[in-house]
């Protein structure tokens, strides 16, 4: 057996594929004992110490701390017989008696089949328990190929001439003489039933002459293999003339791609908060009465936007992006505040650039302009680019709240629901108050529940009493 042994990172917890080296507890040249802790490794499940598998002298540390290593890769080399003199550092030198005793595959040097940790050529590693290096496990042993292994004979004894040419699947075989029941999978049977197609009259093109989904559709559309269907069939449930087909393109296509990308990469969490906004509504009335706002159309959205911007100042981390490419979280000091808008072309999210620097009046102007441009269908790509955080005003549709999906590249989006007169406990008595529900979705990779909650809480605090919040925060 070779003197220098490589220890490969094992699967430390039932199906893990990698681990990060946290710290080496030994260094090259150290003499170590069996089971002496040598390295701390953190996996997706736990941070653990790995004890030395062999006693000896450390000859090589393969990966420094901070490196993430795939399971099955060597992490340390140990000279298990240091008393025997120097060895060539690169080539494991099997001694003659160990070759005679144990080595099984001399042609491949140090391979020890069945021995975990046995170094092996071609990056392949022999493993016993429950795991293997990725590339090795992806390979399958080739099947022994014999002509008889081709799945023929059993298929359709009535049509041997056809099945003898399995390499031409595109050409459907001629109709076999069917003697037994029709072969079709249950979903295909249901499809046929839904479309009013009789399976018995279809020539199946699937394996063993089974009827496929395509066969059924073809038959339903009056395909060649379909004999004249009974005119007495029940009223068609499938009627192409009563369906409208809209090409997927433009904003719809972009929206769909964005939603799918966002929903399946950023783990979303949504929290809700119901708030008494009566004071905000009163503040809005006061603003409308002021000369500065005389020309402007202002709505509760303005105060929600202001609340979000002030809350971002208090919790800058929510205004950030996950950059998988660079393995970084990008925290932005500017807020490009997106406002989701329903337009003829579909959903768009233009944003107010650097909204955090705007005065309330400037913010109102910007929001007015943004909505006007969107309604006119004139929103430019630049208006929609580089958003950092968004608001979706589902309240305008009379909806209470929702669980919004994050625009790609953003980490938080606030849904702002309808404001309704609602019985509410106010100063210990039930009063009719103006109440709304806020829904905040955030990227759980970046924002923990605590941060998201505090952020939403602050928005709620502001809307509950904007004047006090401004005095307290600014």
């Amino acid at each position, binding site marked *: 057996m070779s003197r220098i042994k490589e220890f490969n990172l094992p699967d430390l*917890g039932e199906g893990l594929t990698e681990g990060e080296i946290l710290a080496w507890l030994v260094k090259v040249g150290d003499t170590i004992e069996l089971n002496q802790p040598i390295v701390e490794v953190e996996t997706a*499940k736990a*941070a653990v110490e790995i004890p030395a598998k062999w006693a000896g002298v450390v000859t090589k540390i393969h990966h420094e701390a901070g490196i993430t290593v795939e399971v099955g890769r060597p992490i340390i080399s140990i000279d298990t017989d240091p008393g025997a003199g120097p060895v060539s550092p690169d080539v494991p030198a099997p001694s003659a008696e160990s070759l005679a005793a144990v080595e099984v595959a001399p042609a491949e040097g140090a391979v020890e089949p069945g021995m975990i940790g046995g170094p092996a050529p071609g990056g392949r590693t022999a493993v*016993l328990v429950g795991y293997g290096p990725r590339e090795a496990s992806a390979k399958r042993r080739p*099947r*022994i190929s014999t002509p008889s292994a081709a799945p023929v004979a059993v298929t359709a004894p009535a049509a041997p001439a056809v099945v003898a040419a399995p390499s031409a699947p595109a050409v459907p075989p001629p109709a076999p003489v069917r003697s037994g029941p029709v072969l079709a999978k249950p979903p295909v049977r249901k499809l046929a039933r839904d479309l009013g197609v009789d399976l018995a009259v279809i020539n199946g093109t699937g394996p063993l002459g089974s009827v496929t989904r395509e066969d059924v559709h073809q038959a339903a559309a009056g395909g060649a293999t379909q004999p004249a269907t009974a005119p007495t069939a029940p009223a068609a449930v499938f009627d192409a003339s009563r369906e409208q087909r809209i090409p997927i393109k433009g904003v719809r296509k972009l929206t769909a791609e964005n939603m799918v990308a966002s929903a399946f990469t950023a783990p979303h969490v949504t929290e809700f908060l119901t708030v008494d906004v009566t004071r905000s509504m009163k503040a809005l009335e006061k603003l409308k009465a002021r000369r500065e706002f005389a020309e402007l159309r202002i709505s509760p959205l303005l105060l929600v936007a202001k609340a979000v911007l002030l809350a971002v100042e208090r919790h800058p981390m929510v205004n950030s992006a996950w950059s998988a490419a660079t393995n970084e979280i990008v925290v932005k000091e500017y807020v490009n505040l997106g406002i989701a808008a329903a337009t003829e072309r579909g959903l768009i999210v233009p944003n107010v650039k650097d909204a955090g620097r705007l005065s309330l009046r400037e913010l109102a102007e910007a929001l007015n302009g943004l909505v006007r441009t969107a309604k006119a269908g004139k929103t430019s790509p630049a208006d929609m680019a580089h958003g950092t955080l968004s608001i979706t005003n589902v309240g305008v549709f009379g909806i209470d709240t929702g669980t919004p999906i994050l625009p790609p590249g953003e980490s938080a989006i606030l849904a702002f629901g309808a404001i309704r007169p609602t019985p509410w406990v106010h100063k210990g008595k039930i009063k009719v108050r103006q109440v709304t529900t806020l829904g905040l979705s955030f990227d759980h990779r970046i924002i923990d529940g605590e941060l998201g909650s505090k952020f939403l809480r602050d928005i709620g605090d502001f809307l509950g009493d904007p004047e006090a919040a401004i005095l307290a925060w600014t």
Partner: protein
Amino acid sequence: MAKGERKAGGKPPAPADGAVDRIPGGDAPAGGFVQLLTPDGEHLGSVTTADGTTYSVDFTDEEYRGFYRDLVTVRRLDAEATALQRQGELGIWASLLGQEAAQVGSGRALRQQDMAFPTYREHGVLYCRGIDPIMPFGLFRGVDQGGWDANEHKFNGYTIVIGSQTLHATGYAMGVTMDGKTGSPDGEAVIAYFGDGATSQGEVNESFVWAGVFNAPMVFFCQNNQYAISEPLERQTRIPLYRRAAGYGFPGIRIDGNDVLASYAVTRAALDNARNGQGPTLIEAYTYRMGAHTSSDDPTRYRIASEVESWKAKDPIARVKAFLAKQQVADADFFAEVDETARKLALDLRERVLAMPDPQPVTMFDHVYPNSSPEVDAQRKAFDEYHASFEGSGH
């Protein structure tokens, strides 16, 4: 009774719930527990519970040394298993670290004819049953399904599904009664092991019902190690676990699970009650899992370090060592010899684990039924042919 109010030695008054109101080291939970050997190694001789039952042990010096040897050995083997898992030689390991006394005490209390139903952590009980300690390693290495004969050793296979073995044990115990093997001092009894988390399972509660109603000759031995993986005890129960037994109509008692003598004495008495026809008993062994739930778990994510440290002071082995040294029934040579013997056993175990052959995949069909069945035979044949279809399959 306030914690620590009563000094050891006085006659304890009757506490309300059948536990012992004796708190010698100030280390007992509210309500007390049966303790015969304090964390400092003081042997209390005997202890009487509220219902008047007196528990005592009086072993020979050799027997006391034997307990120590068992405790050290099972801890050493467990440590080797943990290392082997970290080195990639076992897929997973459930460590018993901290629970040695509960297992060795109750394991040694079993008589030859008694049947035990373990979880996957009862390596100490397995050792006490005289089973080769290599046996669970095959299971956790994935090369066999736990290779011991449950009938021969009166020790059922490790059960992974939480709590299900309590139903098997109850059924078995009811069978013992039907066979007429209870009602005498040499009758049979059954013990079922489970943890605090398992008490939230339906199976465990069902088995309590059946065992209570049918007066099954059994002992429910709950090792309350305080955590159901990561869930602390307060999320499993609003009352001490041993008091649940009252609701099912049989006695429950709490012991210091880190005291091997209390574990032995109370288990032995409960088993004898069972074999004499007195029905089941629930024993709650109040202990602490010093390690992770399994090798896949990181306990630092849900436990604070100071809690672990406080339990280190209650170590089940240190107190036996202190007792042996104080009583001068063992010396440094003895302790060194026990350590060395355990070390050799562990290294021997390591060698044997590394030498375990990989099974042929087709052997998985071998133990589905004791005798062949046409269906399984057909499956085996098809599977064999499938494997033979690969190059280098060696068939």
